[in-house]
């Protein structure tokens, strides 16, 4: 296995991008990343695209070839592969690209994540989101993805005494971070009462506990470490990228207050990198619902099980806290274009590790973690990036 670095990053703004199509989004992010890496098109060996549901959102499958085509790569006939794992599609595409370079099969790979979600109505978009759960044994019976996370929240409150306010604080904190991110969908701070008094979606979760529907794309360029410095003076090393699975249906697990896949992927990642959770200075975690961030910061080993709510309320996950979680604003405030999210997390980590994160910069950041989950955690990818 070769060492692999990220040498370029790019992304679109996240939000309701009415005048942009999926191909527009993919190209804008991809070209920005390629430009950032100072590459020429002919340098690229392969393209990986994370996308959850173009088939349902825009009735288009075969999107890897589409994006390769419109990025001007079709004439080079490079392999272009679409990866799907619901909300973890982006993180998984990144891992596949990483493996392709680490194995020596390719030298330079572009990994993109893109989702165009606002071409359908909100109700249908939520239904598409719920296809990440078990259609036959959860969704058919009336469960939505929000309702499954609501039941996780209820259970976390029951088992650990986590409060509604602690859960809500995740949204408050992520909006505060998002306000510092010029690419975030919501660059506006909110207070606790806004979250608590919002219309209910699935009790106890309300509108402000849910990540929004977004359009957007993000891309990174991967390169073998031995060649990385010929493109950039600030290569970011992929210290680890680990993946784990769990049962598709939430009810098939012995516990719902932990995502075993997050725990296992994190253990594998920390082992691969020879690092410990305490060494992580910043983390982008999958807060598709507020409660998911509390599970994540516990399952990643930042805080003991059951203490995630308290840690959040105490500011330990805010900028300046013990570990800065979701400095980008997270899925909640930066936005949540499904397939783009896992890649956008890495873009944020790279900006931070390069020291280019502006007002939300974590001082002297050298080690960052990204946790990207699909559905109710049936697929989780945990990656560790460090300054090379």
């Amino acid at each position, binding site marked *: 296995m070769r060492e692999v670095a990220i040498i370029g990053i790019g992304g679109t703004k996240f939000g309701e991008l009415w005048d942009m199509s999926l191909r527009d989004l993919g190209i804008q992010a991809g070209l920005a990343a390629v430009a950032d890496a100072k590459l020429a098109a002919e340098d690229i060996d392969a393209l990986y695209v994370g996308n959850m549901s173009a088939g349902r959102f825009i009735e288009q499958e075969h999107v890897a070839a589409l994006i390769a085509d419109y990025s001007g790569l079709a004439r080079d006939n490079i392999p272009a592969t679409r990866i799907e794992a619901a909300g973890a599609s982006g993180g998984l595409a990144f891992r596949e690209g990483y493996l392709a370079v680490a194995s020596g099969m390719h030298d330079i790979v572009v990994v993109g994540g893109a989702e165009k979600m606002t071409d359908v109505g909100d109700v249908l978009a939520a239904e598409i989101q719920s296809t990440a759960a078990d259609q036959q044994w959860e969704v058919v019976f009336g469960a*939505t993805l929000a309702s499954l996370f609501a039941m996780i929240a209820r259970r976390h409150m029951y088992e650990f005494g986590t409060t509604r306010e602690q859960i809500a604080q995740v949204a408050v904190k992520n909006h505060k971070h998002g306000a510092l991110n010029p690419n975030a969908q919501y660059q506006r701070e909110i207070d606790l009462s806004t979250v608590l008094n919002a219309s*209910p*979606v*699935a*009790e106890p*979760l309300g509108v402000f506990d849910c990540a929004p529907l977004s359009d957007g794309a993000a891309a990174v360029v991967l390169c073998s470490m031995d060649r990385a410095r010929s493109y950039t003076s600030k290569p970011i090393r992929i210290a680890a990228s680990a993946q784990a699975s769990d049962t598709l249906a939430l009810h098939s697990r012995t516990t*719902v207050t932990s995502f075993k896949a997050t725990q296992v992927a994190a253990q594998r990642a920390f082992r691969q990198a020879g690092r410990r959770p305490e060494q992580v200075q910043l983390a982008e975690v999958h807060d598709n619902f507020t409660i998911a961030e509390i599970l994540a910061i516990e399952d990643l080993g930042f805080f003991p099980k059951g203490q995630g709510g308290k840690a959040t309320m105490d500011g330990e996950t805010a900028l300046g806290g013990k570990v800065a979680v979701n400095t980008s604003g997270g899925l909640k405030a930066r936005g949540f274009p499904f397939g783009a999210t896992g890649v956008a997390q890495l873009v944020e980590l790279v900006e931070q590790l390069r020291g280019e994160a502006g007002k939300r910069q974590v001082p002297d950041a050298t080690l960052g973690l990204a946790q990207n989950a699909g559905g109710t955690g049936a697929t989780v990818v945990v990656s560790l990036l460090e300054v090379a």
Partner: protein
Amino acid sequence: MATARFWRENPSRYNLKAVRCNNCGRVFFPPRGVCSVCHRKSIGKMECLNLKGEGEVFSFTVVHEAPSQFEILKPYMVVMVKMDEGVMLTSQLINSDPKDVKIGMRVKATLRRLGEDGPSGVIYYGYKFRPIEG
């Protein structure tokens, strides 16, 4: 046509058909061919059974934003139920006021309409839960 996709699950939807691994005793729902714990040791030892339909609420929520199929039921309750056989199921809880529902509450499965393939399509039926009286 989604007709066959739903139809083939009817034994579990109507009568809670499950499977027990006679190597370890674990019950799986819906039925699966191999025990996910015992793996090959379970081959030939997976035995079908119908769950008795009773269990207790493991977690619950009230859904206010629902897919179009469930619009008319809003707000409705969704529960995870730990069945007496040890396996967990997700469905709706009916005949209950959310303020009376608690984790641990005893419930029983009953047959209701789950949805339909539009007004001229096939109607799907399956289990929902209701409180056990008393």
